[in-house]
């Protein structure tokens, strides 16, 4: 780069100014192709990011995964239309699941507001109707927070979405559409985006079995299922079990992000995303079991004897230790006292 630092600073300041006027996100400067994605080299990237974050601190919904948030320069825009694509109808579970986890994150910030899910009859017939019990169990969205609209025609669905997008009384609007209908063109998405911007609430456009096409949405994510990790138990991962839902995300379009692919795992208990760790790192992160083993269990782990301040099992028993009641005796001695 031939520009001096001062000149670049001016350029960035001007860009921020333009972005503020236009209400859009500033474009990312093209990073040198040879440079690795490193904080030292990409000073320009950090400057841009800091610029947006400083100008609009509340404009982004952080996903909670550092690498992904950094790629999107702060997270998903909150007051905007976001496209979430699934390549096939059978991905409807993953697409809906990802949108719902985003909704769940939003509901953490705006608790109590309802979520409206609009779908055409076609998509609800093909991909299934949202099931409130599952939504509550996996995403913590209670049935009293859910509203559904089933529109027989796409025109009606778009109309309801436009009306809903400008309401501040809804936490989020999910519009689910199948395929590439002609009516959902640049104009229609622009209207949705403009209303979402005005209301400051997100609109998630779920598009099942659709080809990417030009829309007004600033971000397009392509979601597919990822094989789930096995369930974690005290004794290690349970073979053959299906653990937390996982998604493979591809950033299909973003004015600020570099293209990339991520595998995220949704944690339904904490209602937060984790990035999928490789097997080795996971173990290294958590070397000791968090929960202590139960003493009265059927098969106590052999290690539990070693940490006690008693002589090791192999050593000859000392006279003092002989006075100590043995394990079953202690239990029998404690039994009646508890009952009394």
């Amino acid at each position: 780069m031939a520009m001096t630092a001062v000149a670049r600073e001016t350029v960035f300041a001007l860009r921020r100014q333009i972005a503020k006027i236009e209400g859009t996100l500033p474009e990312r400067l093209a990073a040198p192709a040879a440079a690795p994605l490193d904080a030292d080299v990409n000073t320009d990237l950090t400057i841009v990011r800091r610029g947006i974050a400083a100008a609009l601190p509340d404009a982004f919904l952080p996903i909670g995964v550092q690498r992904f948030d950094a790629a999107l320069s702060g997270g998903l825009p909150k007051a905007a239309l976001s496209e979430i694509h699934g390549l096939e109808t059978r991905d409807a579970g993953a697409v809906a699941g990802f949108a719902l986890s985003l909704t769940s994150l939003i509901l953490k910030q705006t608790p109590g507001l309802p979520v409206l899910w609009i779908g055409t009859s076609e998509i609800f017939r093909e991909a299934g109707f949202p099931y409130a019990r599952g939504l509550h169990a996996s995403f913590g969205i209670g049935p009293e927070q859910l509203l559904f609209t089933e529109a027989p025609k796409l025109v009606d669905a778009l109309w309801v979405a436009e009306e809903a997008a400008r309401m501040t009384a809804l936490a989020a609007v999910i519009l689910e559409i199948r395929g590439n209908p002609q009516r959902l063109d640049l104009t229609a998405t622009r209207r949705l985006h403009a209303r979402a911007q005005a209301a400051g609430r997100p609109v998630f456009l779920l598009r099942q079995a659709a080809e990417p096409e030009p829309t007004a949405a600033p971000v397009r994510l392509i979601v597919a299922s990822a094989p789930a990790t096995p369930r974690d138990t005290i004794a290690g991962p349970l073979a053959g079990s299906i653990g937390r839902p996982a998604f493979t995300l591809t950033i299909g379009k973003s004015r600020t992000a570099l293209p990339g692919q991520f595998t995220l795992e949704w944690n339904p208990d904490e209602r937060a995303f984790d990035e999928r760790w490789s097997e080795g790192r996971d173990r290294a992160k958590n070397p000791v079991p968090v929960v202590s083993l139960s003493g009265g269990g059927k098969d106590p782990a052999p290690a539990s004897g070693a940490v006690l301040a008693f002589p090791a099992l192999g050593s000859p028993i000392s006279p003092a230790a002989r006075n100590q009641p043995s394990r079953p005796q202690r239990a029998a001695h404690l039994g009646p006292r508890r009952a009394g």
Partner: protein
Amino acid sequence: MGIADARAMHPSIEIVEADPEADRRLLEGLADWCDRYTPLVALDGADGLFLDVTGCTHLFGGERAMLDDILSRFFHQGFDVRAGLAATPGAAWAAARFCGDRIVVSGEEEALLAPLPLAALRIEPSTRTSLESVGLRTAGAVMAAPRAPLARRFGALLLLRLDQALGRLDEAVSPRLPVAPLSVERHLAEPVTLTEDIERLVGMLAATLKTDLERRGEGARTLALLLFRVDGAVSRIAIGTSRPMREPMLIQKLFHERLAAIEQDIDAGYGFDLVRLSVLAAATFDMQQADLAGEVTDDGADIALFADRVRARLGEGAVLRPVAVESHLPERAVATIPFTEAPRRTTPPKKPDRLQAPPQTIFPPERPIRLFRSPEPIDVPATEMPEGPPLNFRWRRALYRVTRAEGPERIAAEWWREAASDPITSTRDYFRIEDADGRRYWLYRQGLYGNTQVPPRWFMHGVFA
């Protein structure tokens, strides 16, 4: 006389099959139209209408003017109508059928009925013939006869009808539609055809309605707009609101959506000359305190209005709300009901919802996030164990290879609901499976192996995130 005889006498005769159902519909259409004179319109047999015009006549310039108006309007619509107006339904019935266009002043019923034949008394034909057989041929003769023998011989109905016609006993006319508690209307000298004009009229009528509603401390829950077309057709457009409403602008907005939705169904024809807005149901209206800036911030009101507008355009079931139902069958455990505003929660919920904490287990069973409306049958060629999950399956003509499976979770049918269902064939074993691409599904096998008559079948019921 048969058709053949009639044709022999008049070869050019036109023969139309009797259609009582169509006649009935026509009469109901006429009754709808007569709503413009009074809200109390009742059907009378197959060929008559009762209009209770008590307190309405002055709106049309008196009884005579009203009767003339009814007759001339019906005449221009192509109906030959005969009308009678009296203080009792019985006398009016007789006047319309036997005198024609007569207005009977209260107290003159006896003079009207006396010369009329017995049919004017609305009695059974058998009673009539037996009365005639004893020489009582006119209503006056019956009136002159002693009452006790008449009642003994011809039954109580004869005297009841007589007393009702003479006004000695009250007779209620039961209107076919419930009477709206509040209703405002506007007669138009020049018929309107444009939807915008109708909407503007709705706004004006709603503004009139607002003062009445304010006086009663109520808001409208159900509103109906009646459009009377010049040629007699009546369109009835009803909307419902989630919370009591009296603001004219909002009412106009709701009718705007409704009219936009049914624009092609309403045929303005030559125009509407009477527009009426009625409140069919009202409820207590809670006043709300505005803040100093004069703004009432109430998210619930926004959502209620939004739901009303969507419903006005897309129909009653357009905005749905899920409710948890006590049932262990997955498809019954959640019901979706049309949006109604939940009662406002003033205190925090005391005990956790059942959904949050199922009583028996610490870990609630996994439930999918999408459920198919009806379980879709899948082909399962092989399972590792008879009772186990499938190794692969074919769903919607695509083959899926199962890599992992959890289950089974056995869910039995609700025997207390369906008495006839066989417990073996209706038992389901649910499996949560993951395919080679990482998609997670919810399958079940209906029925058990070893039951030779009905082999178990497999279904796809839902998808997980």
